């Protein structure tokens, strides 16, 4: 069931284009993340959904109702900001109850709902504190409760965890997901942190320079990136430009080295250039196990990353990363030494752009 729909959204600030032809449908209860680097238009898109910016063209519909020109205070959309934005002059309870007070609810009703919200975020004890008496994490919880208290049809979060330290970020992330699922509220979550997006979302919208690069669930985004940008931004894919050698058999070459691709190269012509990608964890040393593609390489660098060892190697003239588990039996090569590595033909992805 379509709940929120963005159609052909376009936004320019003067001559500069912030968002271009943005199309998205979000289902009731879905958790969708906007993921992308700084300045790619995530916030601008979110603000158009909230009503703080007007799209230059295009429409925002919620539950079949056109919201494009509805002012933000008439949208019934909850918003959580990176800077918390709690009202400094109000206690925690007054902050959480503010939206209800504006809606003209009775004192008893407000009181009851505020208690309910505070217990939802496990902050009952902070009822009469002021915002400056709370830690950042606590403030953001209250901000979440405040946004949810009005029972909005949509919850929008703009990098809500960016100002917090790593441990709190992790905890609060789980908390947001738990509450979102409990209430079944449709949510849009803006972040530039791929781990956050991958771990929280039902679907991820990867954006770059105002445009959607790819929409998919975390599994698809991580394992089957469609563009070079997604491949680079999510995870740490190796990408290289290759030339099609035999479209039917799925063979391409780069730096004079042939490469077998299981998914094939249908629709491509011989001699055409394609971008291919291989995840670092899909390589292994030939000595361990033989797979379809075998490459000669020179070891450039070795980095220990805890449970994983990252080997940087040169195949032909291109640099690739290989991740391998850090187990005691692992025999690491010397830097500068010649080695042979291998990867499955299924590990080779063909990207659209």
């Amino acid at each position, binding site marked *: 069931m379509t709940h929120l729909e963005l159609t052909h959204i376009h936004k320019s600030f003067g001559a500069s284009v912030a968002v271009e032809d943005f199309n998205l449908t979000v289902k009731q209860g879905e958790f969708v993340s906007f993921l992308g680097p700084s300045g790619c238009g995530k916030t601008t898109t979110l603000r158009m959904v909230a009503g703080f910016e007007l799209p230059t063209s295009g429409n925002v519909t919620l539950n079949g109702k056109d919201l494009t020109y509805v002012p*933000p205070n008439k949208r019934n959309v909850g918003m959580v900001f990176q*800077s918390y934005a709690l009202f*400094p002059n109000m206690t925690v309870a007054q902050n959480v109850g503010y939206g209800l007070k*504006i809606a003209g609810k009775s004192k008893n009703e407000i009181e009851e709902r505020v208690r309910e919200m505070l217990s939802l975020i496990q902050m009952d004890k902070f009822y009469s504190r002021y915002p400056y008496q709370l830690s950042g994490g606590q403030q953001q919880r209250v901000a979440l409760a405040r946004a949810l208290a009005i029972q909005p049809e949509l919850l929008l979060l703009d990098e809500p965890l960016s100002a917090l330290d790593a441990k709190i970020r992790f905890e609060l992330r789980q908390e947001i997901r738990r509450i979102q699922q409990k209430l079944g509220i449709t949510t849009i979550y803006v972040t530039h942190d791929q781990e956050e997006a991958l771990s929280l979302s039902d679907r991820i919208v990867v954006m770059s320079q105002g445009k959607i690069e790819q929409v998919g669930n975390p599994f698809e985004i991580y394992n089957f990136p469609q563009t070079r940008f997604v491949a680079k931004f999510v995870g740490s894919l190796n990408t290289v430009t290759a030339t099609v050698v035999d479209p039917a058999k799925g063979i391409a070459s780069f730096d004079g080295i042939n490469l077998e691709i299981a998914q094939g190269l249908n629709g491509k012509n011989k001699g055409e250039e394609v971008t291919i990608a291989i995840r670092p964890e899909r390589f292994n040393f030939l000595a361990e196990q033989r797979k379809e593609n075998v490459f000669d390489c020179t070891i450039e660098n070795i980095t220990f990353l805890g449970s994983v060892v990252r080997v940087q190697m040169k195949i032909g003239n291109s640099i690739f990363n290989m991740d391998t588990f850090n187990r005691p039996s692992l025999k690491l090569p010397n830097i500068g030494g010649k080695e042979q590595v291998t990867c499955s033909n299924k590990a080779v992805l063909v990207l659209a752009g």
Partner: protein
Amino acid sequence: MDEIMSRKRTSFFTIFWGILALLYFFLPIYGTLDFSLRMERGILGFKAYKIIFADPRFWEGFRYSVTMAVITIIVSAAIFVPTIYWMYLKVPQARPIMEIITILPFVIPGIILVFGLIRTFSRPPLQLTTSTFKTDILMIAGYVIISMPYMFRAVDVGMRSIDVRTLTEAAQSLGSNWFHVLADVIIPNLRLAILGGSLICFATVMGELILADFLVRPALGPYMVRLGLTKAYEPAALAIISYSLTWFSLGLLQFFSSRSERQKQQVITT
């Protein structure tokens, strides 16, 4: 060793200059106070004060000026708070311009303002000098302009201390309209700034002379001057009264700001 020496020296000079400044500031006031108490030969007494407090023209001037000051404060707060709020929200780049405009009353002498007002508003289409009520409106308008530099700066500083834009958006997303955003979120967080601006506004209007003199209204300023022309001790007493009034205002400001601090402290401990 050298460091200790130099630190000692600075602290000595700090105290020295501090005392000098205090003397510079308080000696004249002390002199005035002393003089004001010596109306009767040979004894210290409040005779000059008694004369002033017994003078109906003083009370008339006092009442008039207080009324004008209060109305001025209300009008200028009503003008400046929403205007500065709007500026912060929509046209932050206009701030330097606003700063220049609001400092003009410092640069342009009061007398020019008065003549400008009289020349413009003593003839049609907007003739405001025909009745005392209309003249009072003109007075208020003039006072608002004179106190504009203080009000603007006070509110500006307060506005800068909060995240106007995000707070506004947060309130809007919770259903607030403009009026509620201002009344529930912006103004409560500017309370101290507005209070500070108001008190300076109050002191300015209470001591204002030129406007009231030329528009011939019974304010405290002209009364003070007229008294000074014919009397010796009473003006000194009046000066002390007006100092006390100013300090009382500052004391109030201090009281309110420290009280709101204390309130915050109390909540922490509970």
